[in-house]
């Protein structure tokens, strides 16, 4: 997996999480994962297709999701609500991916971002040689956010682009 494909996601996650969690965020763990994804809390997946293809999973602890919900909605406090948590995790994923793909698009890549899908299963999405996943754990005082990115060049699309 190429670092230039991953870096925009790291930068976007850092910026969006710092803003929406309204507290310092630190990367507490980075690892490469070729095993099946194991869900920890509330997770959504966003698929990307085009010159670059793959998927990003966001897995967010309840405390962090509720904190983001309060920040985005401008409410000092919200009652713990599984529906709000699911919606917030999806919106958080949208914000990070949207910012990341804006950077990638500015570098000349063309692709389509698909709507977030709740990732309810405990396992899924085996990595492979081309799509091994980078797993980053962002820690904050409100809870942790895990971003699991598996992204690769679409060789056929790139070959077509070179021909033309």
């Amino acid at each position, binding site marked *: 997996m190429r670092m230039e494909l991953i870096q925009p996601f790291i930068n976007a996650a850092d910026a969006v999480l710092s803003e929406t969690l309204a507290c310092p965020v630190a990367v507490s763990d980075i690892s490469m994962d070729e095993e099946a994804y194991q869900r920890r809390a509330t997770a959504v997946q966003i698929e990307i297709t085009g010159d670059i293809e793959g998927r990003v999973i966001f897995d967010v602890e309840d405390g962090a999701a509720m904190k983001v919900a309060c920040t985005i909605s401008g409410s000092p406090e919200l009652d713990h609500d599984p529906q709000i948590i699911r*919606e917030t995790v999806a919106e958080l994923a*949208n*914000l990070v*991916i949207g910012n990341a793909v*804006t950077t990638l*698009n*500015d570098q000349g890549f*063309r692709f389509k971002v*698909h*709507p977030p899908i709740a990732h309810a299963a405990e396992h899924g999405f085996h990595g492979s040689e081309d799509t091994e996943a980078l797993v980053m754990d962002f820690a904050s005082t409100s809870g942790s956010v895990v971003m699991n990115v598996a992204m690769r060049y679409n060789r056929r699309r790139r070959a077509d682009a070179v021909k033309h």
Partner: protein
Amino acid sequence: MELFPALLRKNDRQPVRYLVVDDSVFARKNLARIIESYGGVLAAEAGDGCTAIKEYDRTGADIVLMDITMPQMEGIEAAERIVRQHPDARVIMVSSVGYQENIVAALQKGARHFVQKPVKPELLYEVIKYVLGDAAVTAPLPQPGV
């Protein structure tokens, strides 16, 4: 939340009516809360492009706040169809996917402006005021204790 001078329609001095289109209920609620702080009213909301077209036909909202990435029909196509049927429609794209290609495509299809998420209420207010132009006036904020 910060209050803004209310945006009113110039012709009848009624609050501006909004159609909010986003597949995320959370995002719709957040936008509804923001437009309330502008003195606006929610005419309708929709979770996809197809519903947005129907809701615009039904309500003729003054402003449409339209997400891009949605199931069934994406926001740019929905904006195009609304503007084709209603050339005076004022559609503002509100999306986290803010790359130039998307913005240009949206503007070419008839959207009036583009705001990137996360939405900053003060920025969206200025954009809405700009898009409404002469069709809107602002009412001063009520003075505390008056």
